[in-house]
């Protein structure tokens, strides 16, 4: 044997160390894979939970809004129609009574006529509020135009409306959501924002209809999450998600409010 000969034990030791190290490295790889998968599944579950939570909140908002709307309609009916019809009914009973002078009969009849006219007018208003006939007959653009006119005439606010998009009549169901969103936004601008100028414009951005809304109200801190959890905003959110659109809201205190959404 030459002095440089390699002893058997050295070869065996090397072989065993090599084998074991490969084995353990493989094991590390397998464990890494196992735990990574677990981690990824965990993350996905968390994401899904969050989504479900969001959907639940939306559903909750829808139900609450529905109830509020019912309450409002009930109140409108009660205050504006039932009360009038009540008096009409009373007056009619008076008419059936005997010993009425000519003048009295005339007065009662006039009363009845004017009250019925008022009840009719109120019922028309209620129906109009629920779904404007202009919107139904002439589409979104005309509906929004009328909405703006209504706001201008009754609420001392200047509304600037521009439209560059031709809306397809077949999509009227989707457009109703857009209409409601604008209604909600305008109501918010006036009620919370104390705005006296509102700009609404529809534009076509790469084939996607987009609505730009802005007001000059007192605004709010849009970074504060509390401001985005109102029922109205949730309602808008769920309508947007229904339309498969997206919405960007930005506002700063005393700097007005802007919202851009696609639908």
């Amino acid at each position, binding site marked *: 044997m030459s002095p440089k000969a*390699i002893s058997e034990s050295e070869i065996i030791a090397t072989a065993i*160390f090599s084998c074991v*190290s*490969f084995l353990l*490295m493989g094991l590390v790889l397998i*464990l*890494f894979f196992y735990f*990574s998968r677990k*981690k*990824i599944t965990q993350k996905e579950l968390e994401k899904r939970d969050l989504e479900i939570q969001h959907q639940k909140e939306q559903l909750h908002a829808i139900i609450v809004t529905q109830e509020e709307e019912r309450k409002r309609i009930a109140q409108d009916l009660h205050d504006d129609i039932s009360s009038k019809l009540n008096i009409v009914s009373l007056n009619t009973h008076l008419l059936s009574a005997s010993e009425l002078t000519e003048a009295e009969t005339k007065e009662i009849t006039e009363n009845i006529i004017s009250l019925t006219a008022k009840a009719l007018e109120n019922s028309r208003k209620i129906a109009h509020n629920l779904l404007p006939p202009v919107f139904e007959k002439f589409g979104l653009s005309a509906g929004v135009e009328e909405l703006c006119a209504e706001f201008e005439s009754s609420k001392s606010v200047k509304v600037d409306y521009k439209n560059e998009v031709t809306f397809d009549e077949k999509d009227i169901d989707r457009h109703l959501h857009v209409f409601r969103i604008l209604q909600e936004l305008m109501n918010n601008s006036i009620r919370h924002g104390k705005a006296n100028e509102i700009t609404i414009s529809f534009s076509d951005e790469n084939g996607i209809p987009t609505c730009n809304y802005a007001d000059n109200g007192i605004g709010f801190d849009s970074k504060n999450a509390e401001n985005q959890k109102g029922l109205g905003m949730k309602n808008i959110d769920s309508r947007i998600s229904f339309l498969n659109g997206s919405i960007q809201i930005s506002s700063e205190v005393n700097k007005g409010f802007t919202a851009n959404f696609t639908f």
Partner: protein
Amino acid sequence: MLVNFGYFLLVLNFILYAIGFFKNRKSYKIFTAYLLLIITVELTSYILIKLHVSNLFMSHFYFIGQFILLSFFYSNLIKDEFQKKTIKIGFVLVLLTLAIQYGVKSELFLKFNLYEIFITSFLLIIYATFHFYNMLDGKKEFYFVNMGILLYLFSSTILFLIGNLTAKFSKDVSMITWTVNVILVIVYHLFFLYEWKVSYLKRNKAQIID
């Protein structure tokens, strides 16, 4: 030629990382210290060769020094408590067992110590895997460095494990494995260089201008 290129990359990396030494986190500092360790080991080995002294025992300084510095590096980088604990326990156990081993068999000092090579590299591979696992959903820190460490340790460990055998081969044959090692080292340092370019080039440049 290849060897010189490897040295060049090593020194270049050290200089580049040293530029941002004071303005970066502790893990960055430890990593720079690690580069300095490699330079020191390489330089000492080179001088020993010139003095015709066997430089094989330098491998112990290399492996243990690498293990100590990279353990610190990873324990600074990793936030998970279990993983931190594992690194601490591993650190103590390895140094303890090695101290006992050298105390009992001091002649091991003059050749490649298989246990030492295996345990230091293997634990570092585990730490690197920890770090990869943490980066699955976290910020990518020292991503390419970690990749380089993992790849180099995987491959070089085997080369060092058979080191005692190749040391007894004829010079021409043993040169083959060491050439392979030099190529691995170059790839290793290219990963460091890339990491520096991706993560620190802009940051360090801004500091120089400041």
